């Protein structure tokens, strides 16, 4: 059970939840796209269920299912074509042709029923192939082509009807399988409806889980990209029309089976019904968005509306008018929704919290222990001109220095004065906190990637890039987005911070402005390879340091300006207690000092106006919306302050480069062999200053006393 850092914010319990943030996270879910169609379906069902007596009785449900099967198959075919970026207006006519073929073959030629099913599908496939041939191979426009074939197939259906209607009308044939298909119910539904459901499941699988489905989606989303990715667009497009034709053919068989007659008006205007169903379901007309279930939902709305109005004995035109209204409405919704969704999420994603901090100490006062000075101004530069943003530094057993770089490198500096620099590993991401494990591997927290280990030969491999997803979180928080700092305990466990579950590597400034408990502290166990959360809901956890006795870890919170101790063992194991509170700056990294104390670097210093903005959440929200990022009010980032803390949590001294010339920002420091090494996220160098006290003459690096080896 992980400790909870929420209480540290000092906010009331209900601040854990934010309606706005929940809404933003919900909008980010793909399945939210179907919210409107599902709502509409529910409304339609409830309305007719309440207003039409007997709407829910068995016979009506079976009939509705039967009609839904026919319309649903057309909608499914239409979905596949639209998903691939085309359109098929001829589905109604193909349906009519297949219907005619099935009726004639059954009644006039008395073919066996399974062959008739096959022939109906084959009829659809042939018709679909004609569409596909023209559109995909001769590159004609889908809209005009299928409009033409709509008329062509329609005339074929009329031809069949005119030639055979007399004989069909006078012939009567009884076939067990035929009747069985039309009338027998399985669990209240006819076989046709069950076949529809099966096809929906199959197509859903094909569209979302197979290469073929992905390629169709890709083609619909961007033909150019799909072609450049090497997809055979002509073949893919042809196949979508064949599938659409086949499904229309099957649908034609079902209507032949149900009605048993062919007429000239069969399937007239069905392309409109199928199109409406598809658009209601949320299949985007521009292509590349849609699934089989959406088509089913849309078809459900259309069919239930039809059946309900029929049972209410309304005029048939009412149905057409309602379809038209819904079609227009959903076309607009489709357009506006997909266009503005990302922007809407962006606008409401960040919800700054109101944080009331303790009174700000004036560091400029003469007797303040924090008073700015020039102790670090003349620090010896290392890697000047090579480095861009070494956030953390660490030294190994041989005294070689390692540091990160904003460009995704980890550098190694060796030689008597650390003058030989080389890129040790190109790990990628934003390398932040560093550590050296017992096997001389460099462990690095890579912002945007996770916890990585770099072997002495420079090869890197991930230790932890995700952890178990929290329950009751809408947004997936399993990836490690902003791993920040780490320390290694005597037993080899790696404790590290993930500063944010909402923002990635370079977006730490958003986290600073939002100031919500979005981070967590994790533990990686090399024995099992498992990563578990030990402190959740922590506000910007940054520096991590195992205490000298190895019994607790210290956790810096950069947005609450405090340091807390988390007990690993002892009676308070698993709980936190305050170590330092109300600091004048945002603590970044914390490391052990040789005299039993700790070094701590400030990433930013508080200013009275930023403290006030911290209390006024609406001010920060307005700032996020109205000002460009460069214009945002931040705490003072041009600072360079390192403080020394005793084991009991007393600030002993502060070291500054108040000129801000050489070290405009110090985010980390490491004591080694009498020197203090300084890293900074925006600096062009690592600095080092000789420490004056003599207490560190014996041990080279500052390890942990209990079972501690030589660690950085």
């Amino acid at each position: 059970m992980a400790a909870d850092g929420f209480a540290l914010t000092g906010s009331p319990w209900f601040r854990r939840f934010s309606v706005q943030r929940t809404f933003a996270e919900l909008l980010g879910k793909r399945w939210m796209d179907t919210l409107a169609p599902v709502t509409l379906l529910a409304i339609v069902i409830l309305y007719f269920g309440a207003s039409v007596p007997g709407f829910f009785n068995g016979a009506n449900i079976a009939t509705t299912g039967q009609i839904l099967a026919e319309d649903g198959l057309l909608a499914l075919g239409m979905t596949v074509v639209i998903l691939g970026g085309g359109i098929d207006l001829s589905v109604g006519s193909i349906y009519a042709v297949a219907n005619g073929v099935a009726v004639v073959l059954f009644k006039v030629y008395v073919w066996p029923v399974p062959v008739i099913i096959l022939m109906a599908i084959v009829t659809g496939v042939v018709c679909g192939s004609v569409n596909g041939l023209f559109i995909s191979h001769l590159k004609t426009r889908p809209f005009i082509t299928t409009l033409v074939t709509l008329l062509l197939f329609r005339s074929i259906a009329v031809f069949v009807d005119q030639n055979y209607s007399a004989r069909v009308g006078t012939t009567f044939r009884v076939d067990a399988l035929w009747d069985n298909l039309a009338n027998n119910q399985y669990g209240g539904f006819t076989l046709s409806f069950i076949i529809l459901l099966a096809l929906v499941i199959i197509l859903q699988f094909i569209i979302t889980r197979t290469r073929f489905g992905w390629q169709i989606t890709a083609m619909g989303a961007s033909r150019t990209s799909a072609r450049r990715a090497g997809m055979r667009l002509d073949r893919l497009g042809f196949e979508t029309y064949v599938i659409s034709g086949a499904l229309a053919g099957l649908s034609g068989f079902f209507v032949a089976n149900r009605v048993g007659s062919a007429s000239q008006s069969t399937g007239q205007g069905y392309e409109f019904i199928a199109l409406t169903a598809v658009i209601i379901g949320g299949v985007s007309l521009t292509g590349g968005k849609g699934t089989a279930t959406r088509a089913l939902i849309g078809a459900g709305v259309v069919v239930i509306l039809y059946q309900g109005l029929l049972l209410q004995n309304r005029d048939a035109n009412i149905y057409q008018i309602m379809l038209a209204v819904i079609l227009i409405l959903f076309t607009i919704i489709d357009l506006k929704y997909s266009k503005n969704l990302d922007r809407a999420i962006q606008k409401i994603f960040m919800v700054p919290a109101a944080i009331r901090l303790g009174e700000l100490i004036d560091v400029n006062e003469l007797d303040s222990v924090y008073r700015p000075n020039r102790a670090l101004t003349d620090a010896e530069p290392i890697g000047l001109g090579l480095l861009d943003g070494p956030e953390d530094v660490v030294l190994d057993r041989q005294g070689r220095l390692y540091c990160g770089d904003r460009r995704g490198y980890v550098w190694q500096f060796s030689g008597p004065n650390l003058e030989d620099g080389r890129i040790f590993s190109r790990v990628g991401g934003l390398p932040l906190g560093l550590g050296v494990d017992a096997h001389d591997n460099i462990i690095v927290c890579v912002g945007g990637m996770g916890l990585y280990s770099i072997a002495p030969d420079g090869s890197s491999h991930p230790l932890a890039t995700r952890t178990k997803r929290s329950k009751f979180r809408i947004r997936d928080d399993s990836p490690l987005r902003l791993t920040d700092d780490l320390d290694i305990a005597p037993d080899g466990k790696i404790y590290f911070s993930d500063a944010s579950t909402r923002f990635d590597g370079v977006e730490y400034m958003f986290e600073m402005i939002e100031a919500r408990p979005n981070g967590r502290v994790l533990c990686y166990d090399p024995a099992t390879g498992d990563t578990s959360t030990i402190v959740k809901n922590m506000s910007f956890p940054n520096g991590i340091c195992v205490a000298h006795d190895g019994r607790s870890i210290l956790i810096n919170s950069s947005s609450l300006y405090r340091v807390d101790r988390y007990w690993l063992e002892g009676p308070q194991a698993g709980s936190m207690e305050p170590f330092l509170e109300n600091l004048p700056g945002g603590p970044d990294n914390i490391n052990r000092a040789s005299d039993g104390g700790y070094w701590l670097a400030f990433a930013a210093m508080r200013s009275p106006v930023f403290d006030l903005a911290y209390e006024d959440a609406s001010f920060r929200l307005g700032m996020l919306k109205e000002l460009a990022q460069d214009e945002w009010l931040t705490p003072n980032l041009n600072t360079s302050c390192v403080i020394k803390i005793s084991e009991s949590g007393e600030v002993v001294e502060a070291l500054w480069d108040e000129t801000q010339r050489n070290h405009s920002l110090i985010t980390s420091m490491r004591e080694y062999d009498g020197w203090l090494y300084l890293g900074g996220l925006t600096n062009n160098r690592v600095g080092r200053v000789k420490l004056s006290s003599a207490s560190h003459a014996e041990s080279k690096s500052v390890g942990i006393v209990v079972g501690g080896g030589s660690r950085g």
Partner: protein
Amino acid sequence: MASRTFELVKEFLRPDSGADRSLPPMDGGYTPNDDLDRFEGLCSLVDVQDVLAVDHRRAVVTAGRALWLVDVFDISAKCLVEFDGQATGMDRLGDEVLVAVTGQGLYAWHLRNEALREIALSARGPLSNLSAVAAVGSRIFVTCPSAEHGWVDWPRDLMNKRSSGGLFELRDDGTMETLISGLAWPFGLCASPDMLSLFYTESWSHRLARYDLASGTRTAVTDRLPGYPARVRFTREGTLLLAMFALRNQLVEFVLRRDRYRGRMLAEIPVEDWICPSYRSTLSVRQPMQLGAAVHLGEIKPWAPALSYGLVAELTPQGVALVSYQARAGATRHGVTSACEVGDRLLVACRGNDELLLGRGVGEEHSHDQ
């Protein structure tokens, strides 16, 4: 609250109806450069306020409580007289230099006789709080920046969005006639070369305006200046030299729109830590910072948002900028309040750096890359 909601709805339905929150771009004559940094530092004068040419090589300067005479040829400065208050604006009246002194009134220093004369003194009223003075013939005009806040309380006047300053004529009998009231911190004042009108600046409304002496009407020459204007003077060529002590800043404008936050800031935070334009950076770690001003690889980007800036612009009388000399973010020659021609050289009062700067001459210093 209801009106704010209504505003939001209106802005959502008709995006064009929203308030214009844009700041004037720094283009044309305001194209950023570092020319002010290339100027020669003439001498250091604490709290320098105004400069006024006396002849082709000498100028008088107000700094702190004193009036100085500087020579741009042999680079010398001599203190002429010390007052009991802050010396602010100046103008020539014959052989005399009119000097406005806060808390006191108006003095005249005779250049040849080296004698001080009292023109009008008062410890109260607008006369005790003068920002600038201009003489037209024998008529004397003065500006009072604010009826509520004194000369050094200007941040409070700005952040309270006050406009209670005025333009006055000082009559011979010592009384003041109000010509215009309700000005937002009138800072600079000068007479046009034809002596028919007065040009004055209003800092808080970023405006340069003209007052017609004959008709008594005022017209805005430009009210979309990119910064907060300070003093204004004519050159021999008939153009205007306008100094700006800070640029308009998106964050400051935002704070000016946020009444609750601004109210608390004014009440709870010492003035030097406010989000407010300033003459100089205090270098304190407690001062407000904007993200773009973060030092990266040892450098601050020159276009970083800053609360202080140095700018002297040469404008046509119609308010079009021809050239400008600037000190950008990261530089120190900020808070420029006044500039004048001395011979063929340009003398600039840089209050932020407590320094007098000397440029080669109007229109010549400006360096172009091509």
